C-alpha cells in the first residue's frame, strides 16, 4: 500500500455519525473508512459498502467437507481395504452421517475463519495504523483520504461543521505491515523505500 494523507474526525454518538457519513458522501469526499468500537448496524449501508459474501464461502467450504468425508470413507471401505465388519455393508450410509456432518462443520468453520483473516488482513504481528486510540474504546473515527482534488483545510472545517470532534490531518501508511505495537520500527524493512530515499 502507500503512504497517504488523511483528515480524521471522531464522533461520540452514532446519532451524529450517521448524518455526517451521509453528508460526507454527498459532498463527494473520498471516505477511507469509519472505525468503530463495536459493530454499528446499518453503518455499512450508510457508507455504501456491498454485502459480504463470506457466507457463500462458508457454504462452499462446507460442501467440500461433506464430499471429502463421504468420498474418503467409501473409498477406504470399498476399494482400498474392504473389510467385513460384522457382515455390515461396505457403504453404510447411516453410519457415515456423523463423521460427514462433523467434517462439514469443521471445513466450513476453519475455512471461513481463515478467509475472514485473509480478507481483513488479520494475523499475529500484523500492524496497521490506528488513527485514534479510542476508536476501539468509545469513539467513532472517520478517516477521509486527501486526494489531489481535496482542499484539506476546507475538509477540516466541513467535518467540524457536521459534528466531528478533534479534527486533524495525518500522513500515514494506509495498508498493513509486519510490526509490533510497542515499537515504531518495522519487523521487515521494504527495499522500495530505500530506493526512493
Amino acid at each position, binding site marked *: 500500500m502507500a503512504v497517504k494523507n488523511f483528515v480524521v474526525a471522531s464522533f461520540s454518538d452514532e446519532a451524529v455519525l450517521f448524518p455526517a457519513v451521509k453528508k460526507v458522501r454527498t459532498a463527494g469526499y473520498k471516505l477511507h473508512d469509519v472505525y468503530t468500537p463495536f459493530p454499528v448496524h446499518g453503518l455499512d449501508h450508510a457508507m455504501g459498502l456491498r454485502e459480504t459474501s463470506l*457466507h457463500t464461502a462458508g457454504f462452499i467450504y462446507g460442501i467440500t467437507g461433506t464430499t471429502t468425508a463421504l468420498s474418503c470413507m467409501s473409498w477406504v471401505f470399498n476399494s482400498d481395504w474392504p473389510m467385513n465388519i460384522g457382515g455390515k455393508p461396505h457403504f453404510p450410509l447411516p453410519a457415515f452421517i456423523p463423521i460427514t456432518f462433523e467434517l462439514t462443520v469443521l471445513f466450513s*468453520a476453519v475455512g471461513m475463519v481463515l478467509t475472514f483473516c485473509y480478507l481483513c488482513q488479520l494475523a499475529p504481528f500484523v500492524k496497521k495504523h490506528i488513527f485514534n486510540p479510542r476508536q*476501539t474504546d468509545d469513539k467513532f473515527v472517520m478517516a477521509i483520504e486527501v486526494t489531489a482534488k481535496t482542499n484539506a483545510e476546507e475538509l477540516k472545517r466541513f467535518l467540524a461543521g457536521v459534528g466531528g470532534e478533534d479534527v486533524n490531518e495525518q500522513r500515514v501508511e494506509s495498508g498493513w505491515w509486519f510490526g509490533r505495537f510497542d515499537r515504531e520500527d518495522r519487523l521487515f524493512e521494504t527495499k522500495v523505500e530505500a530506493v526512493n530515499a
Partner: protein
Amino acid sequence: MHLKYESTLREPLVDGVKDYHQVTEDIISPIEAKPGKLWYVGFFISLMLLAFGAFSVTWEVYYGTGVWNLNKTIGWGWDITNFVWWVGIGHAGTLISAILLLFRQGWRTGVNRAAEAMTIFAVMCAGQFPIFHMGRVWMAFFVLPYPNTRGPLWVNFNSPLLWDVFAISTYFTVSLLFWYSGLIPDFATVRDRAKTKLRKLLYGVASFGWTGSTKHWQRHEALSLVLAGLSTPLVLSVHTIVSFDFATSVIPGWHTTIFPPYFVAGAIFSGFAMVQTLLIIVRKILGLEDYITLGHMEAMNKVIVLTGSVVGCAYLTELFMAWYAAVPYEFDTFYKYRAAGPLGWSYWIMMTCNVITPQVFWFSKMRRNVAVTFVMSIIVNIGMWFERFVIICTSLYRDYLPSSWSYYRPSWPEVGFYMGTFGLFFTCFFLFAKYFPVIAVAEIKSVLKTSGESFKKGMEQYEQQSAEEFEAGLHHDDDHHHDAHGAVAHAHHN
C-alpha cells in the same frame, strides 16, 4: 429502517448509568490491575491439583491401566464417567453463544465470553480421559485415519468411538475459533489503552492488528452468525454422538433410543450449573455485578429447571420402559441393580440432586437468590456426575453371568486424575479471568443503548404514548436530536 427500541418492561441487561467508555473501563481495568491475594491462592491450589493429576497420570502410563480399579466386568469406570461429565459441562458455552444468538436472547452478551472459555477448558479436560484410557498413550494417533504402513489398516468408520474422535475434536476446534474471533476486537481495545510496553506487545500480537474498520465489522458479524448457525447443530451432535457410545451397544440400561435427547438435556443442565458456579465467583471478585446481573442468573436458572425436568422425565421414561418392555435383563438392571443393590445409593443421589432439588427454581425468589443459586449449581454438578456414574457402572457391575458380578471403587490414580483435570480447568480459568476480557466488551456496547438501565429510563416517556403519538413524534423531530441520551435520536437513524 430498523427501529432500535426495547420495552422498558424488559429488565435492563446492564445496570447503572454507563457510557461506552465506562463499559471499557469496568471490564478491562481488572486486566490492568495486579491480581488480588485470592487470585494467587486460587491459582496456586489449581497448579497443585494439576501437578498431582500429572503425577497420577504418569503413574498410570508407567505401570499401565492396571493401576486403575477397572476389571473385566467394569471396563469403564471413573475415566469415562469423568469424560462424559466434562464434555457435558462443555456444552453450555456454545449453547449460550450459538443457540441463544439465533434465538435473539439479548442476555447472552453478558455471559457468553466466560461460558465459551469454560467450554474450551472443559473439553480439554474431557479429552484427557479417553486418551489416557488407551493405556499405551503414545499410540493415541492410531485413532486418526491416515495412510499407514500397517496395511494400510484404517480406522472403523462404523464405530461410535471413532465418531467421538471426530465430534470432540471438531467441537473443540470450532468453539476455539468462535471464541477467539470474538476476542480479537476486545484484545484490540486492551492494546490501544495499554500503558506498558509488554502489554502493548502481547495484546498487539493477540489482536491480529484489528482496527475496527466498518468493513471488517460487517464480515465479523457475518462470520459470527454463520459460526453460530454451524455450532447449533454441532453442539447437539456432540452429546448425541457421546450417547451413541452407549446406545449402540447391547448392554441393558444403555441400549435405548432415548439417549441422545436425554444426554443433550443433561449436558445443558450441567453446563449451565457450571457457568453459574464460575460466574457467581467472577462477578463478585471482579466487581462485574452490573454486567452479570440477577436477571442473567434468573434466565440461566430457568434453563436449569427446564433441562432438569427434561432429565427427570427421561429417568422416569427409562423406568417405565424397563417394566413395559418386559425384558428381564432390562428390568433387573433398573429395578434391582440401579434403584437398589450395592450401588443403589448412587442412583438416589442422582435422583435427589438432578430431579428433586432443582424444583426450587420454580420460585422467582429462589432463582434470584445468589446463595441458593451457588449451592444449587454445585448440587446439580454432583448429581450430573452421579448420572454418568450410574449409567456406566450400574449397567456394568451386574453382568449376564453372576460369576462375573463385581463391585467398583476407584483407586488413587483414578481419583488423582480426576482432581488433576480440576487443576487444569481452574488453572486455565484463572489465567483467563486475569488476562482476558471476561465479558464481550464490544457486544455489551452494541446492546448498551437498547438494554442499558440509563437508556431505558429515557424511554419511559415514550412508553406512555399511544402508537399514533409515537409515530407522529418520530416524523416531527426527525432532524432534531434533543434527547439527552440519544436513545430516540438513535432509533431514527438505523
